[in-house]
């Protein structure tokens, strides 16, 4: 048979009707309890706490689902939200909002949270957003996990707490990003946050940006084929940046800028960049056991802003400019007091 969305037209009507009926029969057993979720089947404004389930595809001018209550769980239930304009899901100044398990195509944002405290977006498959696909402004306690974002015009995930009174906490993990117009994952004024095990391929700008952040864990991400640097710490300190792979960045692989201090940069691999593999401009950072090979300039560079960084057991070979900048083989220092025990493998050439 060829199946369209409603092979049994009556079935859908029954399903919609059951949304109300289920509330009546809910006490009978667990199956009915599951059906006690409120069905969503058209453009909706949610004004009461509760659990909601999408029961058909919805398209139209956004926001398709506007959340104006706290304690709301939306199960997209494998269905599609396709806004012709605006956001698919929008929430402002609410708490404990969850969106999960479905598909979102087009519109400005797939999910847009402003001023949301404690929110989750999980197992959502997004394509074609014209602004940040998953946008979180002045939010705190956000989890983005197991999502796929493709072919966007702007960011994949934008978490911007720069206008918040205090830094925000966010997790972005186990997600895939492809064909991102600008930055795949952009965090501003985030703290105590996790960015882990994401795969990024093909971005128009940096793969990841951490701007004015502190105490981040950035680990085990793969960043490939970026339009600018692989990823950058800008004014960010006290971060663990470990086990990431950066491949084929258009500029540097990893940037730790002059205002980023006391970060641990360890066990990362950077290869095939057009210029320097790992560029450090800040102070008192540690570079440990990184592999920075086959880049278009130096493997590792401590530039003129950098002071008192320590590097050990790094490997940098096959870089066009040499293993490191500003010193003889195995010693790098274009700034002041950048120090090594000499156990690196940073030959002047090769």
């Amino acid at each position, binding site marked *: *048979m*060829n*199946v*369209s*969305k*409603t*092979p049994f037209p009556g*079935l*859908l009507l*029954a*399903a*919609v009707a*059951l949304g109300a*009926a*289920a509330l*009546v029969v809910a006490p009978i057993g667990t*199956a009915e309890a*599951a059906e006690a979720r409120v069905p969503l*089947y058209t453009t909706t404004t949610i004004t009461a706490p509760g659990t909601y*389930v*999408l*029961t058909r*595809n919805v398209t139209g001018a956004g926001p398709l689902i506007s959340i104006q209550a706290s304690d709301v769980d939306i199960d997209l*239930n*494998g*269905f*599609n939200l396709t806004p012709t304009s605006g956001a698919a899901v929008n929430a402002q100044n609410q708490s404990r909002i969850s969106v999960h398990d479905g*598909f979102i*195509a087009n519109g400005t944002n797939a999910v847009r949270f402003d001023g949301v405290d404690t929110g989750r977006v999980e197992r959502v*498959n997004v394509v074609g957003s014209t602004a940040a696909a998953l946008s979180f402004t002045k939010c705190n306690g956000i989890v983005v996990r197991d999502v*796929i974002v*493709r072919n966007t015009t702007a960011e994949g995930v934008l978490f911007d707490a720069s206008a918040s009174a205090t830094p925000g906490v966010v997790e972005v993990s186990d997600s*895939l*990003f*492809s*064909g991102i117009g600008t930055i795949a994952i952009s965090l501003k004024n985030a703290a105590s946050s996790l960015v882990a*095990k994401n*795969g*990024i*391929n093909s971005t128009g700008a940096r793969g990841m940006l951490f701007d004015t952040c502190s105490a981040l864990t950035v680990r*085990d991400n*793969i*960043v*490939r*084929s970026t339009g600018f640097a692989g990823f950058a710490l800008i004014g960010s300190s006290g971060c663990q940046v470990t*086990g990431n*792979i950066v*491949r*084929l960045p258009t500029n540097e692989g990893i940037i730790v800028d002059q205002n980023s201090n006391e970060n641990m940069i360890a*066990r990362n691999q950077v*290869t*095939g960049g057009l210029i320097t593999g790992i560029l450090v401009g800040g102070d008192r950072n540690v570079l440990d*056991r990184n*592999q920075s090979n*086959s880049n278009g300039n130096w493997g590792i560079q401590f530039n003129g802003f950098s002071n008192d960084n320590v590097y050990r*057991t790094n*490997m940098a070979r*096959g870089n066009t400019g040499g293993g490191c900048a500003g010193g003889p083989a195995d010693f790098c220092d274009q700034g002041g007091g950048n120090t090594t025990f000499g156990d690196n*493998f940073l030959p002047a050439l*090769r």
Partner: protein
Amino acid sequence: MRPTAALGALLALVLAPPALAADGRTPIWEPTTITEPGAYTLARDLVTDGSVALITIAASGVDLDLAGHTLSGTGLGTAVYVLAVDRVRIHDGVFRGLVDGVWASQSAAVVVERIRCVDNVRCLLLGEFGPVVVRDCNLSSSLISLYLISAQPAIVERNVLAGVGNATQPLRLLTSNALRIEDNAAVLMSNYWALLTTGDAVRVDSNRVVKVGGDTALWFDGPATVVQDNAVSTGQVQATRDDVAFRDNVVRASPDIALAQLRLTAARALLSGNLVSGGAALGLSFESTASRGVLSGNVARGNATGNLWDFGTNDTTAGDNFVPFLY
């Protein structure tokens, strides 16, 4: 209970539509072509004679819940055939006795989760145009259990690849870049390779592979691959492209009498913190085509014909390796 109340309760039970209908998902109960986006749930087992795919997905934005049901054949046919569409999720079912479980060679943003596959020629063939996730599956086939082609980025994690079907190449991941292969278990393989990759920016982390015969356990034929925290027993590991890193792996007891247990043939490999022991030939080797490799903090002991052999050029060791020439 008063009669009216009892009648009301009875009517509620009798007239209630099937539970699955309550969430609006469309049931599938026979071979089907899905032509519109949405959520679909298999309502019964399906069997093919091989002439058609049991379920064809011809629309983007489709969630197919197999609901624990089995799609099976007698050695022919395909369970789920995905046309050139995107955003497809297939989950929670069984494929048995088919040529292919899922064939999605021209699709993007495909997610496959919690599939059990037995007695197929291939279980999953995915890729070509975009992201892929394969997670929490049990896969066993006679040829290739998971075949990724140009899937990028991709995640392959928490799968079990049992060797019941004696797959020739359980994980064949070709030209798939930005790929994370993590926490998979491959056991009792008697085959060519438990895992073959040819893409770049590949991360292979915390997998467990035990072989009972055949040749190479893990073969990395793409550059910029990071292999760490894996446990490989009775199988050989090799990397044949530039700029790879092996960190903190355990490789032991390879029965191969010709190849080193951990064998490098290209430039600028980094070997750090690995334990390589008890092999039937060499422990670590840089072959003649290798150059500028670095060894740091590795332990290689008890390998029959030597623990470290450098046939390459300009390979470098730090002083903290424990790789006596013999034993």
